[in-house]
């Protein structure tokens, strides 16, 4: 019996209720730029983001995304007041792939700090690695689920509140269905962010990688200074193909 038909109205904590009307008013809402050439996928991701209380701008190509960010113009921007908190893009798109878009964003001084998440229907390790090495925050295998988006949003909000080395701790706490207030506190992640070159990315990867068991034992999974949980860690609660395999990003 399907239990998923939602009857009650979803409420966003900021007071918005997922309706378009509330989108423009609340400056505290995360603003996400979604890029996907598929109309169906764009509709779905937009909905997933709105349910997660994000303001969404959806475009159908990398070029449009850059246009939106004003990155296609010669003079560098950021002054135009376009504030984007997260960019989520499909990998395979005609014209400019998500990977190429990622590179362009990371090359721009104005926007390189914006986390970029890649989505792909293909769970190819080499592809995932390449994206992460280029600075992607995370890699989602399609079809994207609400839990994926919620996790992204949670990570995003946490980054606002905490700085630097604390990020590891707080992200570790956030698993599917794990309420920060009820999760037992974990020890600080043994990874120091400075230990690896793509530091912020690998931290994010670790935290947003497939949820490890939610046991409070802090060190069982982190023998090495890099602290990437062992590659053979148990698969997430979702189907194994959906989440990226754990990779040591060096």
């Amino acid at each position, binding site marked *: 019996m*399907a239990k998923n*038909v*939602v009857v009650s109205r*979803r409420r966003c904590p900021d007071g918005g209720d997922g309706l378009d009307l509330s989108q423009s008013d609340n400056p505290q809402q995360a603003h996400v730029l979604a890029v996907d050439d598929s109309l*169906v*996928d764009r509709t*779905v991701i937009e*909905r997933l983001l709105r349910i997660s209380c994000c303001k969404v701008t959806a475009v159908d190509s990398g070029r449009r995304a850059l246009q939106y960010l004003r990155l296609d113009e010669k003079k560098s921007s950021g002054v135009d007041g376009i504030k984007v908190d997260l960019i989520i893009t499909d990998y395979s798109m005609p014209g400019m792939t998500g990977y190429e878009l990622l590179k362009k964003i990371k090359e721009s001084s104005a926007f390189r700090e914006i986390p970029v998440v890649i989505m792909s229907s293909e769970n190819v390790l080499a592809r995932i690695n390449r994206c992460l090495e280029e600075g992607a925050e995370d890699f989602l295998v399609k079809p994207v689920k609400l839990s994926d988006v919620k996790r992204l949003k949670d990570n995003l909000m946490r980054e606002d509140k905490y700085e630097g080395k604390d990020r590891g701790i707080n992200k570790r706490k956030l698993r599917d269905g794990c309420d920060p207030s009820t999760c037992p506190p974990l020890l600080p992640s043994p990874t120091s962010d400075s230990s690896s070159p793509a530091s912020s990315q690998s931290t994010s990867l670790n935290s947003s990688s497939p949820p490890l068991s939610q046991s409070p034992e802090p060190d069982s999974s982190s023998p090495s200074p890099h602290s990437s949980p062992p590659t053979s860690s148990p698969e997430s609660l979702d189907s194994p193909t959906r989440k990226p395999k754990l990779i040591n990003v060096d």
Partner: protein
Amino acid sequence: MDGGLDLLQKQLVDYVASLFNEFNQIQSLQDESNPDFVVEVVSLFFEDSEKLLNELAKSLDQQDVDFKKVDAHVHQLKGSSSSIGAQRVQNACATFRHYCDEKNIEGCLTCLQQVRNEYFLVKGKLEILLKVTKQSTSRHSYSQLHS
């Protein structure tokens, strides 16, 4: 009285949805504040898919088949059917892509037929789902108006 009917209606939707488990994900994205989501996304899927199927037929009908183009279309169809939850269409597309890789025209034509069949099967199911969903949401707004 209205409450009872509402409940029955909801149970019907749930029951039908359970027959079509694969669409749970899409269904779960619909709620009172977005009562048209399922209809919207499914309609987009129909439009998109039928366009792609036509393109595929055309592309495979050429003298010199552009397999890259064919593969790109199949990839698109595979993606959207995966997002909707149309597993069988998605799987048929995966097979189709193999034949594209091999540049096997016969294989591709057979696959196209297969994909088409699966698509129309899922379309039928989705249309039932849409009907039931529409009924329940319109009933709901009716009862909201009158309560």
